[in-house]
């Protein structure tokens, strides 16, 4: 396939001592996502661009893992409940060195390890099969209980979305997590106010989100999910909290963040981008990085 429009960015070292800034990590995650989007010509690109800062902070500030050993017992677990966000997670896994960068062009193609909807059996670093929405948080309860049985110090991060909050199983998980005092669970809600049939706040309003999770017994933080510094502080607070309760970071993000002409599209749950627009998107992303 023709990917001449998207030259790979030189990659910095993936080592723990890497001095690549989190801003740069987020930029590279976005770039990876755009290059994958170009393979399909369409997809959940706006979500990936929106959540890239969250993933950058998760994978390059908060989480413990070994790129060369995805099943390392002492890793922190990252559960992607929203299977269609796979493009975003692949972009982060590539940046983290868990998935080789040259597989990027196979996104969503036949016999790829990077299918459109994320599945545990396909992709290194993918812990669960999401996609049937509402599974992640209930699964996370089991991961957390298992880790506690093993007296592990690993955290379980679970990323789910505002629209997904309509699934009752999310609330079964939320209730149970506080009952079991799962202080090794860090939930992350991506609030981009966009779901398949329109703005999440209109489809079935999900607010007041902080109060809802607080009433379920969670430690709640709400941050601008596109503000790296705020995210770093929130992840630090969540990890270092002494209270024996599950923690949630509600992240308000902007769909298609970093590519202005895509940000401005009203319905961007599943973006169609014309062939000539990919280069423009990459250029705008690159320009935003240096501006």
């Amino acid at each position, binding site marked *: 396939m023709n990917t001449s429009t998207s030259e790979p960015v030189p990659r910095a070292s993936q080592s723990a001592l890497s001095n690549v800034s989190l801003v740069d990590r987020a930029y590279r995650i976005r770039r990876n996502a755009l290059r994958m989007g170009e393979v399909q010509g369409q997809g959940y690109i706006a979500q990936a661009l929106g959540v890239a800062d969250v993933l950058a902070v998760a994978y390059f500030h908060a989480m413990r893992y070994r790129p060369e050993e995805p099943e390392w017992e002492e890793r922190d677990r990252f559960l992607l409940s929203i299977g269609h966000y796979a493009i975003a997670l692949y972009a982060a896994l590539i940046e983290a060195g868990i998935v080789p960068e040259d597989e990027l062009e196979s996104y969503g193609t036949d016999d790829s390890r990077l299918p459109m909807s994320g599945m545990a059996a396909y992709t290194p670093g993918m812990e669960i099969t999401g996609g049937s929405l*509402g599974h992640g948080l209930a699964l996370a309860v089991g991961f957390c209980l298992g880790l506690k049985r*093993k007296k592990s110090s690993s955290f379980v991060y679970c990323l789910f979305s505002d629209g997904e909050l309509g699934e009752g199983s999310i609330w079964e998980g939320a209730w149970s997590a506080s009952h079991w005092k799962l202080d090794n669970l860090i939930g992350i809600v991506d609030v981009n106010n966009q779901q398949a049939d329109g703005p999440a706040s209109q489809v079935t309003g999900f607010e007041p989100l902080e109060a809802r999770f607080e009433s379920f017994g969670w430690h709640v933080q709400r941050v601008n999910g596109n503000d790296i510094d705020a995210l770093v502080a929130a992840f630090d607070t969540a990890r270092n909290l002494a209270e024996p309760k599950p923690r949630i970071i509600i992240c308000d993000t902007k769909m298609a963040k970093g590519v202005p002409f895509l940000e401005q599209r009203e319905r961007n749950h599943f973006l169609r981008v014309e062939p000539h627009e990919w280069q423009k998107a990459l250029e705008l992303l690159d320009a935003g990085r240096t501006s």
Partner: protein
Amino acid sequence: MRRSKYTRPAWLGEQGEGGQGTADKPRLTTSAMIASLAGPDQRTKPAPFGHALAALAESRPEIVGLTADLAKYTDLHIFAKAHPDRFYQMGMAEQLLISAAAGMAREGFMPFATTYAVFAARRAYDFICMAIAEEYLNVKIVCALPGLTTGYGPSHQATEDIAIFRGLPNITIIDPCDAHEIEQAVPAIAAHDGPVYMRLLRGNVPLVLDEYDYKFEVGKAKMLRDGNDVLIISSGLMTMRALEAAETLSNDNVDVGVLHVPTIKPLDEATILKEASRTGRMVVVAENHTIVGGLGEAVAGLLMRSGVFPPAFRQIALPDEFLDAGALPTLHDRYGLSVSAVTGSIKGWL
């Protein structure tokens, strides 16, 4: 079919007369959620699943038990008492029960998750499908009230659980007959690497197969009794009904063989084909399940695909209906699962 709730039951007589049934046939009461399946003189064993799991867990530290507010009614309370730190009460939340079991399996444990068959099959199906079966996780889902084993009506009668799970790739389906088999099945399904759905009889469970020199093996069908006129292929509690019916029919010079098929999936095709191929025997499949999608259709499909055509093929199964509430013996008579009903059906077909 719709019920007419505005028609007074005829047996009550006119309002105010206070009829209570006739003296020669008293009306039975539905009684507890889980009525014992044992006949008045039948030998039983208490809580075979709970005791077997508690014992097995002594040597298998990775075993954990989870339930959704039904420990007592799935006999898991025996395990919970023996291993309190390995018991997880997940509350009345079956989607969570299954997901948490999946998560624990991903962390290397072997969860036994219990609830009622209706709730696993209907309410938690998507979670069993995506979190457990697709991942081929080592979770054992053990469910009470399979088929028609309660008089509480369709909300609790899992008449289609096997049909639902037969369509699910990767999962092994076990329908044990009695206490003896349940005791043997617990270590056997633990030794089997992969997801298992097992139907459970709980409480005082009839004890039958210990007299047949029987040993449960995952994936194996076994002849319990030979016979030249009729071959009953059965699973679950219908095997004990088949054995009793065979005994009754032998008094009428009808020679009935019984092939017990406790593993519905994967089916022991070789044994079924071998026995069904024997000339001259009517094949009757008997199951505690709707006639749609259970053992009967599995066997029928196998025989058709393999070009094996017995002189006659019949099914003893529940009708494709939402069944009545009532007392279990009444319902088993009504829907053809009792020994007398099985005997009568077979006689009628000969």
